[in-house]
């Protein structure tokens, strides 16, 4: 350390540090600043003792308060779950048809239902619920098993044509390849394709075949029957496609779409929520409309 001296230009004392003739002026740091510095060290020591701090090989020191970010998150999740449990319970107690009349609960149901849908339903029905070949589009106004809140809830709860739930919706179309000849099936395909354009279901050769083989389930008017899951053949929607090949395949070998029951896995509260969500996607049928339709 070299000599301390007074700098002639500023009148300030130097610290005595010198590098190649450059000297450092001693403009002293405030003492309270030094105390603040010591304070932060003390704070750091206390913090290291109280909270998780030192990394070890497989974990870290725990801190005597026992606090951790994971435990904190788990607590938050538990708190949210508890809050949700109340609302799911309220949903369960409500008549499904009444959910839209409760704005707060219905808002919860729609959001919770959207989450449940994305996790459990989107694999088949698509993330936008637009379905795919063989998997119904849930956005349109066509329902195989009925589109009221009650009917949607039942379908989700018990599923369709599964062997896990005795209450599952069930129906089975015969494979007409064993009953009708190839020509008859071709005639029937042409006939069925013309139904959406307004052809009388019972008219002509195709009509006779329809009357004998199809009308018991699909109806004399060919508008289907939600009680049997029989599709409406007069509308513009074909679950498995409306081309010659697709319809020939459907009539010859029949289709057997399966949906699992969800109540065991989701619980009644989430079933109600996802039903409310599906109902809100644009195809929901109100009780009055359903009554008027019948």
């Amino acid at each position, binding site marked *: 350390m070299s000599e301390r001296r007074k700098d002639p230009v500023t009148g300030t004392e130097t610290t005595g540090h010198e590098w190649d003739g450059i000297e450092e002026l001693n*403009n002293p*740091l405030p003492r309270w*600043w030094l105390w603040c510095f010591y304070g932060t060290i003390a704070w750091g020591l206390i913090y290291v003792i109280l909270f998780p701090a030192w990394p070890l090989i497989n974990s870290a020191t725990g801190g005597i308060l026992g606090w951790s970010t994971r435990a904190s998150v788990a607590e938050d999740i538990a708190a949210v779950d508890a809050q949700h449990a109340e609302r799911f319970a309220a949903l369960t107690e409500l008549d499904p048809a009444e959910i839209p009349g409760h704005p707060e609960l219905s808002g919860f149901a729609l959001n919770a239902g959207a989450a449940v849908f994305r996790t459990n339903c989107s694999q088949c029905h698509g993330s*936008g619920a637009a379905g795919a070949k063989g998997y119904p589009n849930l956005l*349109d106004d066509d329902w195989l098993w009925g589109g009221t809140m009650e009917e949607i809830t039942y379908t989700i709860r018990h599923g369709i044509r599964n062997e896990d739930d005795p209450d599952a919706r069930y129906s089975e179309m015969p494979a007409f390849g064993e009953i009708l000849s190839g020509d008859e099936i071709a005639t029937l395909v042409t006939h069925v394709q013309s139904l959406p354009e307004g052809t009388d279901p019972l008219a002509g050769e195709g009509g006779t075949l329809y009357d004998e083989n199809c009308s018991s389930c699909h109806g004399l008017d060919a508008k289907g029957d939600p009680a049997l899951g029989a599709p409406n053949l007069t509308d*513009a929607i074909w679950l498995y496609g409306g081309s010659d090949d697709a319809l020939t395949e459907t009539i010859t070998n029949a289709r057997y779409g399966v949906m699992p029951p969800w109540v065991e896995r989701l619980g009644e509260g989430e079933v109600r929520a996802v039903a409310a969500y599906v109902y809100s996607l644009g195809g929901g049928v109100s009780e009055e409309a359903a009554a008027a339709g019948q």
Partner: protein
Amino acid sequence: MSDDQTSLYAARVPIFPRRVSGYFRRLKWVIMIVTLGIYYITPWIRWDRGPNLPDQAVLVDMANRRFYFFWIEIWPHEFYFVAGLLVMAGVGLFLFTAMLGRVWCGYACPQTVWTDLFLVVERWVQGDRNARMRLHNSKWDARKIRLKVTTWALWLMIAVATGGAWVFYFTDAPTLLFNLVTFQAPGIAYMTIFVLTMTTFVFGGFMREQVCIYMCPWPRIQGAMMDDDTLTVAYREWRGEPRTRGKKRREAAAEASAAGPQIGGRSPLITMPGVRNTTTGKFARAEGPGDCIDCNACVNVCPMGIDIRDGQQLACITCALCIDACDEVMEKTGAARGLIDYVALSDAPREAAGGDPINVRKHLMRPRNYVYAGVWAAFGLALLFALFIRPDIEMTVAAVRNPTFVVLSDGSVRNAYDVRLRNKHGEERPFALSVSADSGVVLSVEGADTDDIVMVPADAQHRVRVYLTAASGTPVSTRERTNLDLWVEDTESGERASVGTSFNGRENQ
């Protein structure tokens, strides 16, 4: 003493500013009363907005994400108003700093205002400068304890009121006050009050000039914004030097001029970075004593404890109290006022050479300031314009593109849209949704019985799903894309708004 000089750490030297009166002191009283009045009283002003909205004139409602300012209500998506105000504050600071240096520090900074208020209390309890110095140096006896504790208690009360006033801006003030005194207020309110109480108490009572010199970045930033025409508090050393006092003025004058340039005594001379240092004595008169009688009045009144005669320095907040103090003395000695004055750096050579002081307007009215004022005013006018053309109803439309369209059982094609409706009125309003009539599509709203009327709650955003349906076989239903407008109308007031969007048809059928 020698230890003190060689230490790398310095203890704070207490400062006991003397009471002063004069033009700038009066100005500072007015500014103090106005700024503190605004701060303490504003949360208590009521403003009727109807039954559904808070009646507090100024309210930052974090929970509901609204900012209320008298008749103005800002929603989160209108945050650009706040950004615009911040830009104006920035440019305003450029303007004021370019014109008047650290005028913010000297008059309006909370640190200055509250320190000033704490000094009033200190002076009221303990007496003026000399009495306070005596008290400070005396032993801790009953009287000293009584006076100090009284001062601290009064400071603490002011500090609590200051911290307390802050939280009232964030929720209904009367309700919160009731909850605070009955210990029902949320913990964060008490925590905030505690923190702000302690900062006010410590910064205003004990740290004072230390905050400005060591903690605040502003002195450094402002130094870079000043130029030769910036008016700032300065000592006309070409008039004052050589400073002498009493009967020995004439001899001292002779000695001083013989000794050459002088360096001021009390505080180290800390030059403003970027500003030329005018060494004292450079323009000293060739003969005779200067106007400065070295009475130290300017030093005694300084809340920063500096000597303005050392020249512009980092520690000077330009509070101008030394101007008042010196003017008082100059009047008594019969010399002209303004030995310490608002002076620009460019004044020094001219005045030292015998030129007359020029009108301050010439310093203020310069191109740089016109540019700042113009930018500032442009932002202000733009914000005002935006404020007045701002609609009371708004709509945003997000077309649902998963899937792009849905075919219904009758073959018609339907598109879905997530529509957000904003009702900025204080009561529930019926919003009618419609689509341009010539578009050939039919509008319906999910879950709505009466087709296209949506009730939007007061001061709220409401999300609805809107469907547009094109009948089978129509051009719209087959065209890949059709542009159309969605309209929303407040059926009570008749206000309308529209948003353009598009409709996707089944291209290949």
